[in-house]
């Protein structure tokens, strides 16, 4: 139910007990702990959570751009080391693409849009001959709704609007016919009025090209809209605390952290937002990664924490009774769930 893909196919990417740790001034920074994820072709997975919780790090590992410290990462069922031939490795690299937040920083300002798109096409031998190259660039620009392509192809990035630049970044990711795109805050810098257009385009590309999309955002309303037919994973201090189908996670959140986040988000509707029930936290500050609290990392802030339980043992990520998603919260897994604690 949580991974709706056909059972036979190996997931495009699988993370099993993945840890990422950095050393900093004699501290261990546990940036990711015990991350388990599967991403199947054509699937949407959304990673949400507050700044520093490990979304980008997870995204980079999924895209094969970062080597994890512990655990296993499988691409189409195989570890990266098993991709030996140059051809195979190149294939793997092009299958996984990432689109960053700031298209200005990631597009070379000295190159025209046509050049920006032609380099990867040529480097990966995706087309042969000038005519085919030109045709493919035209196709790609059309695919991302930059039409007519003739108006765009000779322009430089600074001559385009922020939204148009982000469309170019997406077109560039598509040059190599990837199977998965990690979109890391890809529309965060784009104006609200045009964001939805880019998201709709990503939806369409997903259908037409059978793409899997890992969508990283700190905006929960946007996550809900984009991932309605997929899953959401909520991260806190380097762990996934809740994961499941979007309508369930948003409509019937299980973990107290998810509930607090959802309650805190203002709504673009005056009545709705002014009558939203808040969940007051016990503390406003996120603990440092160098000093992650024992037990459930959320317990010092959690209004429902049970002394002696939540601060003592690590909650497993499991499906609580009455829910369809997994959540890592010990009280939730007890017979009466959080109700016992007056919620």
């Amino acid at each position: 139910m949580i991974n709706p893909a056909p059972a036979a196919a190996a997931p495009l990417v699988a993370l099993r007990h993945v840890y990422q740790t950095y050393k900093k001034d004699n501290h261990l920074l546990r940036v990711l702990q015990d991350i388990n994820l599967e991403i199947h072709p054509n699937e949407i997975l959304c990673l949400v959570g507050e700044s520093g919780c490990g979304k980008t790090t997870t995204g980079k590992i999924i895209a094969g751009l970062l080597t994890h410290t512990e655990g296993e990462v499988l691409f189409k069922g195989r570890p990266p080391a098993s991709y030996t031939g140059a051809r195979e490795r190149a294939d793997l690299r092009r299958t996984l693409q990432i689109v960053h937040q700031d298209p200005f920083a990631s597009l070379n300002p000295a190159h025209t849009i046509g050049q920006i798109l032609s380099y990867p096409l040529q480097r990966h031998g995706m087309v042969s001959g000038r005519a085919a190259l030109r045709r493919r660039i035209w196709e790609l620009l059309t695919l991302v709704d930059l039409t007519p392509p003739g108006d765009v192809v000779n322009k430089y990035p600074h001559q385009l609007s922020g939204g148009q630049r982000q469309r170019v970044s997406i077109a560039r990711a598509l040059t190599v016919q990837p199977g998965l795109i990690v979109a890391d805050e890809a529309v965060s810098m784009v104006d609200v009025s045009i964001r939805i257009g880019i998201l709709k385009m990503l939806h369409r590309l997903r259908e037409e090209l059978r793409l899997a999309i890992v969508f990283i955002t700190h905006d929960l309303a946007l996550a809900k809209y984009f991932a309605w037919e997929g899953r959401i994973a909520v991260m806190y201090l380097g762990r996934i605390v809740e994961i499941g189908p979007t309508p369930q996670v948003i409509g019937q959140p299980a973990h107290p952290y998810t509930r607090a986040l959802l309650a805190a988000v203002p709504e673009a509707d005056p009545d709705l937002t002014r009558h939203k029930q808040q969940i007051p936290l016990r503390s406003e500050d996120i603990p440092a990664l160098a000093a992650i609290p024992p037990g459930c990392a959320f317990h010092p802030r959690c209004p429902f924490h049970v002394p002696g339980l939540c601060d003592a043992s690590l909650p497993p990520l499991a499906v609580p009774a009455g829910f369809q998603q997994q959540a890592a919260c010990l009280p939730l897994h007890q017979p009466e769930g959080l109700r016992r604690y007056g919620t």
Partner: protein
Amino acid sequence: MTVTPAAPEVVLSVRNLCISYLTRRGRLRAVNKVSFDLHAGETLALIGESGCGKSTINLGLIRLLPPTGTIDSGEIVYRRRDGQTVDVRGLTTGQLRQFLWRECSMVFQGALNSLNPVIKISSMIYDTAAAHGMDKKEARDRALDLFQKVRLDPRRVFNAYPHELSGGMRQRTLLATALLLRPQVVLMDEPTTAVDILTQRSIIDVLKRLREELNFSVIFISHDLAVAAEIADTVATMYAGEIIEMGPVAEVFYRPRHAYTLGLLEAAPRLSVGREELHSIPGSPPDLVEPPPGCRFHLRCRFATDECRTTPPPLTTAPEDERHTVACYHTATILKTRQEELARD
């Protein structure tokens, strides 16, 4: 639903304000014929997409425009607590220095990262107070009280360096500092942008409570409709340097009459409304050096007709609510469209 009592006094009155920047390509009219009244205790949210002139209005109001920016025309009249009016455009540099912080203070866009890292919060407070003749003891007491009000640990924050505070704590410190000299008006430029959800929530809650206790007026700049929906009494939608619609928050959200406001609302996802049908506005904002003729929005507007393309629509008042003004030829159609959409939800 918001209830408006008998209109309180106007503290800031802006008429036909025009501001431009000198650019290499020519004069860029960033704010064009903007008029509004800000009442005592009122929170006015300025919404609109990047580059529509929100920050320029705020900088113009306190005359802190960069050297290339000038106020071309218009009036900015401020009313002091003693009832005297002040022509802000006519203030001398010395008078302006007294006006800032004491009458009108601000939290700048991106201020979060611009606090001087080697200056303690206490020194920042003392410097601001000293410039306005407030003595150290009063400044300290007032600051500690305000820190308490914005839910900070007063003593710890007072003695801290900015880098020792989290983003949310710094933003609340700035908010408290802005209130140090008891101004009547606080200008806030995107104070909740680029902060985390729970931090944003605490800033919103703190702002709401402070406003109730201290009754200052706020001009709140945001491109986030949801934040505006939550804290504003009045919402003004800006497009290409102009306020094209303004009214009580419920009017603007539930009974918008301008195609651009409608477009913004249709593009805003709501978390607790299940599956949604959203739409974006096609195209992008016009060039402000050479704005299009007629209604500045017509190139992106699905309701545009011939007169929109030639003649700028005048500002009119909604028949149901005289506080609701709009510059659009198709108010009835837009109102109907929105109501049908709301009925469908």
